[in-house]
């Protein structure tokens, strides 16, 4: 074979590079590089407003370009020969990531000052991690998804160990690094097996392109390899989004990492993991009617995910009850929420009808948006109350603070109630949408388990509220001052929780809407 095989077609398709489709990612990555340079050339003390400002401007610009792609892009929907795709899944997830990242920047601006950490390095890492998350959502190829994942993970490993004189932070970083690399290895092994399994009888090598994988499932030469590869991919993503039984790293890492970083990790990388999870499993191993390898693979992964969802919800909620540390409790709560999202993923996977599948996908994205906002709100309050060095994170530290700093306690209560899923809050709408999508597919038992779990979770969410308002303060305590940027972040989360809880229609419509791009995707 000619060693230049493939270049001929590459030239013909050269117009398909489509740099415009990569606009949001490019903007965020360039902002990251710019922040790095600003960090190198300015004094440490006055750089945090500068780097934080540049980060926010970059994120807003990326959001604008994302909306522009959504509403007015009329070009092709694939870039870099299928490496980057443009569809609703990608754009809606990208917006979620940008919201998470912007809130994290607001949270961290004063915090870096408290901890005397280099703001520039932190914001640059945050932006690179965001670029990685966006690539995970936009990758149409397993290799691209892996690259995005590594970009995200490496930045997050460093951020977890950012308070480098603190042993807990170091431990968190080390654990996250080792288990993260472990799960990346699973993912990569799965990719390799799927590549091998999709080789064709006529000598065409395998493929890592998700759309082509879906087309080759039934003609796969080695179906067992395909199943093993899919299982490896499932384990890899399971680690990343912290589903039981792959969740054991989560509590330790979330507890040890600095609280703003924990907030970011609980919201961003989890959503990014689900974005890739859905991309690979919904589009790579989709529902098919005809009996064959593809059909067996589909029913196999759906069955596995049902079991995973049940275990994850139950383990997360049961373990959260036993925690005495707020950060650990929220870590287990994040595991439980991963279980609720899995219910939506099962619904999206099982949907035989394209419209129903898109509704389920929109429900999952909506749930992750809601979950990100309420988790960031909760961790923002934890950051403020813990003060420098994360000193006050035990539940006793929250005794009776409700009346001393009512606004903080109010914001925290709203976030917790939303995490619990009380009506009028966003968490309720998220749960309703995800569970109803599962009911549409006939997963009554799964939904019953999920609702029972929600009831169990009431215990530990409400306990914190009770502790804040109805317990006596034992020691002396003075209410912390809330810096302006954190107040903005908190106000945004509270407003977001109520807005999404009372008027969810607009956002859901946007996530479900069929803009020109989507209609063309379905049309062609």
């Amino acid at each position, binding site marked *: 074979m000619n060693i*230049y095989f493939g270049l001929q077609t590459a030239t013909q398709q050269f117009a398909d590079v489509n740099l415009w489709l990569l606009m949001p990612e490019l903007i965020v990555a360039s902002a990251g590089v710019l922040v790095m340079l600003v960090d*190198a050339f300015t004094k440490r003390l006055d750089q945090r407003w500068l780097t934080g400002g540049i980060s926010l401007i970059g994120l807003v610009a990326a959001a604008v370009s994302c909306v522009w792609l959504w509403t007015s892009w009329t070009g092709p929907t694939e870039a870099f020969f299928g490496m980057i795709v443009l569809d609703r899944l990608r754009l809606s997830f990208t917006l979620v990531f940008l919201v998470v990242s912007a809130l994290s920047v607001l949270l961290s601006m004063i915090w870096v000052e408290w901890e*005397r950490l280099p703001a520039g390095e932190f914001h640059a890492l945050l932006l690179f991690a965001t670029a990685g998350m966006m690539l995970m959502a936009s990758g149409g190829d397993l290799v691209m998804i892996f690259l995005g994942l590594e970009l995200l993970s490496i930045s997050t490993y460093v951020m977890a160990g950012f308070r480098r004189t603190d042993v807990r932070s170091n431990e968190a970083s080390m654990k996250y690094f080792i288990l993260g690399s472990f799960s990346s290895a699973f993912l990569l092994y799965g990719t390799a097996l799927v590549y091998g399994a999709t080789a064709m009888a006529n000598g065409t090598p395998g493929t890592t392109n998700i759309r082509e994988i879906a087309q080759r499932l039934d003609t796969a030469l080695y179906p067992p390899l395909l199943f093993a590869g899919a299982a490896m991919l499932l384990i890899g993503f399971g680690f990343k989004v912290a589903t039981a039984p792959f969740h054991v790293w989560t509590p330790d890492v979330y507890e040890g990492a600095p609280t703003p970083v924990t907030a970011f990790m609980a919201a961003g990388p989890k959503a990014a993991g689900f974005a890739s999870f859905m991309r690979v499993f919904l589009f790579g191993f989709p529902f098919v009617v005809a009996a064959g390898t593809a059909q067996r693979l589909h029913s196999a992964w759906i069955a596995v995910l049902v079991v995973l969802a049940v275990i994850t919800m139950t383990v997360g909620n049961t373990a959260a009850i036993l925690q005495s540390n707020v950060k650990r409790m929220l870590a287990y709560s994040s595991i439980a929420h991963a279980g609720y999202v899995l219910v939506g993923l099962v619904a999206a996977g099982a949907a035989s009808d394209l419209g129903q599948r898109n509704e389920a996908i929109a429900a999952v994205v909506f749930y992750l948006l809601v979950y990100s906002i309420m988790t960031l709100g909760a961790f923002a309050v934890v950051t403020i109350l813990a003060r420098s*060095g994360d000193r006050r994170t035990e539940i006793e530290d929250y005794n009776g603070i409700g009346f001393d700093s009512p606004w903080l306690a109010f914001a925290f209560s709203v976030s917790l109630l939303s995490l619990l899923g009380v009506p009028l809050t966003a968490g309720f709408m998220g749960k309703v949408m995800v569970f109803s999508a599962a009911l549409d597919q006939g997963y009554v038992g799964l939904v019953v388990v999920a609702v029972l779990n929600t009831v169990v979770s009431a215990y530990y969410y409400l306990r914190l509220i009770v502790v804040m308002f109805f317990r006596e303060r034992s020691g002396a305590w003075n209410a912390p001052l809330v810096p302006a940027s954190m107040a903005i972040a908190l106000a945004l989360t509270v407003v977001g929780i109520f807005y999404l809880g009372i008027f969810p229609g607009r956002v859901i419509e946007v996530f479900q809407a069929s803009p020109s791009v989507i209609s063309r995707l379905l049309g062609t």
Partner: protein
Amino acid sequence: MFDLKAYLPILLMFIVAAGFAVSQVLISQLIGPKRRTPTKLMPYECGKDPVGSARERFSVKFYLVAMIFVLFDIELIFLVPWAVVFKRLAGPEFGLGTLMYVEMMLFIALLFVGFVYIWKKGILDWSQAARQEAEAEAEMLAGQSGERLRRAA
């Protein structure tokens, strides 16, 4: 029997490579200036005493230099295949010259940003002044964590 004639170029390459290495060492031994200091006479000239406990702490700068080495090593690894196919891809057959050039320049520019960053951050500065600065910062941080521990106790 195997026909070993085909492997002659490989043998020649081995001889040339070995000869090059040996000749370089020999030439510098023969004509290089010799200022022998105790440090230089130690087996490994990294400023570390090779005899003694292996559990010695050494400067984190060694790691930083190793990482920077990897960075520029990778750059070189990417440059070589690019240079190999450049002529063909820039030729009339494909006509991708401008694209290939711009892409590689972008790549190098990004690496250069990294270089500027490590330079400004003082990774390449091993002078006494930089060392004192770093020690002062380490002391400040240690003081902070000590204070934190006392407060926690």
